[in-house]
């Protein structure tokens, strides 16, 4: 990506700890974000994503660690800047529009009075809601409310924009359109943004960079392609997309599975588990050692699970035209790019 990694980061989080009572929510959390970058924070619910956003915004105070915005500390050590002084924009999961104010009142809330009218008009045009100033939130559709919430956060020109599951309240069809629109809009505005989501597709689409998070820590950060193709741990591999962790024996750049060779990203030796994505497996019908164990037809494609003679399961995504049936014998063939391999824990050295 095109960010100048040599300039100091816009947002730096260093060794952050946060507990609620006995529950550790963030545990030695580190993250940096550069100007103009859009980061997706992907993790299962309850992993601390929302708490992290609230800490960045100043709605919570860290127990330990440091948060800096634009080079100066806002939380940690002796520093504490209240949320109202941080210039951090936030789009809430339920949008939190002020119900007693009209659209103009909502969007202009964070803008100084003198520039209010102008900024409201400009921002509403930016989010494709021109002329909606005098509507009240309860007369807007879900998608429109979402855009008003975005406009309200953008209007004061925040240093960083935080979005907490911004699309989860929209229905599936609308979600896809809105998220593309929002991505383009934020990119055009050269906004620095952090998206929090538990939807892996959303995370991959929206982020220049994706941080996968679990149990209060970052498991892996990287470009969407790196995250998908080169997962750092078996857990990350499974969380980012469907995967079979297939046993094989590595010998350098190739691992030998019972159905054939799999090219590896990093050379390894000895028994490994290879992260095999379903779309990288072809099934050849006819005689084979593997037996079709499950078949889910999904329209354009089908998800097939085959069992090896030793009972290991392998998922394959095949064309919907395929006419496999339960019990058919097939031979799987690996046909994708080099895959990630993890040392099998039980195999010793």
């Amino acid at each position: 990506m095109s960010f100048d990694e040599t300039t100091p980061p816009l947002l730096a989080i260093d060794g952050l700890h946060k507990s609620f009572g006995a529950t550790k929510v963030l545990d030695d959390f580190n993250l940096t974000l550069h100007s103009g970058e859009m980061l997706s924070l992907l993790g299962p619910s309850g992993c601390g994503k929302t708490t992290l956003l609230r800490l960045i915004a100043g709605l919570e105070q860290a127990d330990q660690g440091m948060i800096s915005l634009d080079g100066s500390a806002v939380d940690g050590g002796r520093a504490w800047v209240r949320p109202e002084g941080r210039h951090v924009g936030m789009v809430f999961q339920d949008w939190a529009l002020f119900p007693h104010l009209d659209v103009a009142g909502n969007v202009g809330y964070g803008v100084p009075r003198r520039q209010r009218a102008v900024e409201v008009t400009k921002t509403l045009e930016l989010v494709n809601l021109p002329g909606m100033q005098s509507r009240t939130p309860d007369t807007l559709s879900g998608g429109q409310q979402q855009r008003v919430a975005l406009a309200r956060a953008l209007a004061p020109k925040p240093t960083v924009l935080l979005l907490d599951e911004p699309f989860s309240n929209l229905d599936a069809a609308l979600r896809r359109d809105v998220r593309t629109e929002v991505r383009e809009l934020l990119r055009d505005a050269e906004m620095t943004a952090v998206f929090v989501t538990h939807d892996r597709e959303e995370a991959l689409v929206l982020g220049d960079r994706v941080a996968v998070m679990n149990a209060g820590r970052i498991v892996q950060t990287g470009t969407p392609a790196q995250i998908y193709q080169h997962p750092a741990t078996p857990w990350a591999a499974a969380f980012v997309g469907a995967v079979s962790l297939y046993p094989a024996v590595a010998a350098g750049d190739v691992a030998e599975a019972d159905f054939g060779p799999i090219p590896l990203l990093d050379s390894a030796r000895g028994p490994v588990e290879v992260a095999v994505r379903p779309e990288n497996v072809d099934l050849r019908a006819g005689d084979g050692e593997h037996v079709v164990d499950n078949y889910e037809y999904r329209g354009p494609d089908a998800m097939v699970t085959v069992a090896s003679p030793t009972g290991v399961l392998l998922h394959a995504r095949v064309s919907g035209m395929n006419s496999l049936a339960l019990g058919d014998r097939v031979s799987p063939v690996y046909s994708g790019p080099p895959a990630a391999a993890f040392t099998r824990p039980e195999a010793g050295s």
Partner: protein
Amino acid sequence: MRSPNIRSPALLKLVAVVVTVGFAFPAGYLVWRNFTFSSDPLGVLFSQRTRGPLFRTLRLAVLVSASTAVLGTALAWLTTRCDIPLKRLWLVLLPLPLVFPTFIGAAALIRTLNPGGLLTDWLNNVGLNWDVEMRGLFGAWLALTLFTYPYVYLPVAARLRRLPGSAEETARLLGNGPLTIIGRVVLPQTATAISAGTLLVFLYAISDFGAVQLMRYDTLSRAIYTTRLNNQPVSLTLSVILLMLAAVVVLVERSATRRFEVAAPVRSRRPVVYRLGRAKPAAVAFLAAAVALSFVGPLASLGDWAVDGIKLDASGGRDLLVGWDDVWSPTWNTAFGSVVAAVVAVAAVLPAAYLVVRYRSRIGTVANAVIVSSFALPGILIGLALLFWTLKTDVGSHLRNTLVLLVFAYVVRFGGQTMRTSQVAVSAVSSRLTDAARTLGAGWLRRFRSLELPLMAPGLLAGGGLVMLSVMKELPITLLIAPFGFPTLTTKAFNSIEEAFVAEAGVWSGVLVVLSGVLTWLFVVRRADHFD
């Protein structure tokens, strides 16, 4: 997500503590004074002088509770669940007895139903012989029943209207008849509302002063009033007994609500309606009699007094002792006092409501308990405590005959009424909204002004309206500690009733009833989601 370790602002806690101490002060002062100053408190406590009033208080309260429970529930059942004609009319009329302070209602009853009264004459003309005198236990019981049944009627009607019909329909499918269904399905589900309303009536009955005073029934509150000047030890001891009685009711109320607390069912389709069939004329007659006795009759007799007096004045008979100034000044005082008390009450209770709802603080819980319990404190006790305090202490003497003291007493008496509405109002402002405002750069003052206050306004107004209504009708506190130059409609009306200036009483009561009628309409009838 609400974070549990959010700290509540120190200033808010400080204000809540001060307010709580204020609410607890009158009761605390009574107890303290009783056991430090009066001679032989225990002796008085168990003497004949105290046992009589205590017994009469309990007897009256039990009788009134029983009759209002039956009357209120029956009226609620007929108007919400039966195919009664003119349903909307009954729904409007039935809560209206609340507009009468009990002493005005009692006076009206005396004038209508005593030998020689309006209705008595009419009844005798029709050939019915009625010669029951309106006084003592019977008079007090009738007055309190007629003018407090709405406290049962309103919650029970609300509950009956919300009961999902599915349970009753299921019972019917299982073969139960209407009466069995009422007994086995409807009443058990309504029991909480009935008992809550009845408890309120019980409390009202033990603390009532106006009706028992006019009916000359010597309950604790009347005995406290009559002994306050010449026998203070007795007066104080009786006060402490009444205080303990009120405390018992509060404890019962607390444990009852805890035990019966049921999640409000999801609002369902319209409730099942029962056909009255041949009982319909009797049901209508019953409703009409209730409305006639508790609302139309008293209203008519007030009008009758006033008109009589004005006619007499105009025809050159006895001069009506009321000029425009005499109407205007108590009306203004009443309006002023109740508005100020309402505003102060809402403002005083709000910090505690914040602590409870937003911060779940322990101080908030204690403040909430003290403030809410003070609704049980009879007005006569607050008035007496503050009266003695201003008479006996140096600090208090500065506040003698001041509006500040009167407003303080009103707030302690009725402030608890705003606690629930204030809590609802505070919880209407989701923390998400204030969070959003903070990230947009708004400090606490701007958040309060632009966000919280507008969103809380309807709830706060509702609570304030209830306080206004109550203060307007308040008698014993006003009688005991209102400044000399501050006549209100209740004190004017009460004094002229006591001195048998009937025409004047009619004028002042009439104005008072109109004012409280407007407020009752706005804050009780309309809000009880009564019409749907």
